[in-house]
């Protein structure tokens, strides 16, 4: 379903209400969902989809997904967290996600940025260069 302008504007407003000091607040999100449930607006499905996408995008900015092929230590995760927190000037939490397709190395995804240091990535770059 395609959202109209009013739905887009309302989703944006609800998203802004969900932030406390620029960070997504679970309490505010619960409040917004309660409001939507009580006063079902027009195009509620499209509205909630837009709202969900905005919240997911915002959350992804504060969450570094660390994909790894081999074992990864807790210390490495903490150091990635510290480095990313410093780089983006906001608190970033790191979560590990095993991915054997990487062969070796790490891939850190934060928002739409990807930091890649994997054998699979290097092989892909090599094959495209040849």
């Amino acid at each position, binding site marked *: 379903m395609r959202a109209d302008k009013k739905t887009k504007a309302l989703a944006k407003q609800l998203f802004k209400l969900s932030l406390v000091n620029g960070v997504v607040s679970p309490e505010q999100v619960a409040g917004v969902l309660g409001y939507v449930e009580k006063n079902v607006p027009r195009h509620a499905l499209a509205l909630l989809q*837009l709202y969900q*996408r*905005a919240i997911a*995008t915002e959350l992804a900015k504060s969450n570094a997904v660390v994909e790894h092929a081999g074992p990864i230590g807790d210390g490495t995760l903490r150091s990635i967290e510290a480095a990313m927190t410093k780089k983006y000037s906001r608190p970033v939490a790191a979560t590990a996600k095993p991915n054997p397709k990487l062969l*070796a*190395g*790490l891939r*850190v*995804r934060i*928002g*739409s*940025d*990807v*930091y*890649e*240091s994997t*054998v699979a*990535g*290097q092989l892909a*770059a090599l094959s495209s260069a040849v």
Partner: protein
Amino acid sequence: MSTVIAQIEQQIAKLSSKAVKKNTGTIRSVADGVAKLDGLSDVMYNEMVQFPGGAIGIALNLEEDEVGCVVLGDVSSLKEGDEVQTTGKLLSVPVGRALLGRVVDALGRPVDGKGPIDSKEFYPVEKIAPGIMVRKSVNQPLFTGIMAIDSMIPIGRGQRELIIGDRGTGKTTICIDTIINQARINKVGLASGNKDFRPVYSIYVAVGQKQSNVVRTISALEAAGALEYTVIVSATAADNPANQYLAPFSGAAIGEWFMENGMDALIVYDDLSKHAVAYRQISLILKRPSGREAYPGDVFYLHSRLLERAARLDGKGSLTALPVIETQAGDVSAYIPTNVISITDGQIFLETDLFNQGIRPAVSVGLSVSRVGSSAQIKVTKQVGGKLKGELAQFRELAAFAQFGSDLDAKTKAQLERGARIVELFKQPQLNPLSIEVQASILWALQKNYFDAIEVKNVVAAASAWKDYLTSRKDALLAKIRNEAKLSDEIEAGLKAAADEWKATFVAK
């Protein structure tokens, strides 16, 4: 041994710790050659975007929560959720002499089966046009080889001259003739060893045309030996609208290389009506607001920024543009024609009625104009053709009145006779451009009344015979006209002697 392996391992560890940063996004939807993308927070306007499978896209719509991107290439392998990444580069095409004689697509990739193009330089497809200070006024001629144009609507190097008319009125033919004429001039000039000679290289951009037409154009250029001085950028009707939209800009980038490296180039955009249609299609799919005739609001800017790139640069070369516009039922006041008329430095209007009467090229003298070309006209053309436009206009006016009355005074009759001869003289077969010295000689003969005694129906044959006579027997005289570029007393005496001799031998069949 173990220490050596440890050293290698350390080196590997150093290398593998180098992280590469990428800005990525995912495909939300793909339809009609346009992809809507999530993410790509760092993407720039007009930046190249890398799709999986080697396809390239251009980011054209940067919205708050999505990026609209045209895909250049096969979209059938793309699907929702595929990862896309930015490249940090603007779309660029290969440029340089290596492209001469080649047929390339809108991305500069060869499509003629002659192997890869060995080009080391790349120019961005979108570039800001040269500014005011670096420009120089147009004062060097660019000969089309078409007598009606070179004598009455002259074109200068660096000028933008629109060729406009209905379908099938000979617009492309004029462009092809001009390209062939440049090749002929180049061959003569380069063979002469003259250090001051500046060849003109041509770029022919085919937008939304039938593939069979493009093949015909290539064959015509090849047969005339003009392909070696020409680059053909092809985005045919079978190409997706994104390629059709980009092709003129790619051609302009190729032309700019010649201009910025001190050479002269001619670019033909055939045609900008189809270009506007392709852009409208992209804009509508991107959900941009539409305006008159459903064209987007920036369709004027689309063509003005393209045509402003044609210029004559101070201390460098020039890029002359011949944009083509197809009108519907001769309506020059439609949206796209009026836009392009207002951007260009003049127009050559081709009329269907004239074409059907057998007057080819069907140039309408009244509606055609060249705003800057007269300062680029050489002296000899001014001397022999200065009054032609006025005489032809008078003839058209008198001819309209003469239809209603049979009693005409001698002066009017003479004007009508002369006008009819001028019209006949300007008839010229296609793919047969005339050199400027031959044109000048024919017009001189007209001015000196050598065609007056010949029946109107035989004037074309007489002009052809006069041309053959000059080229076969008076080569030195023609070379003199070409080199001096003016009618001196000596040249005029030579022409008179030649014309008297020719007239005595000419017998109309």
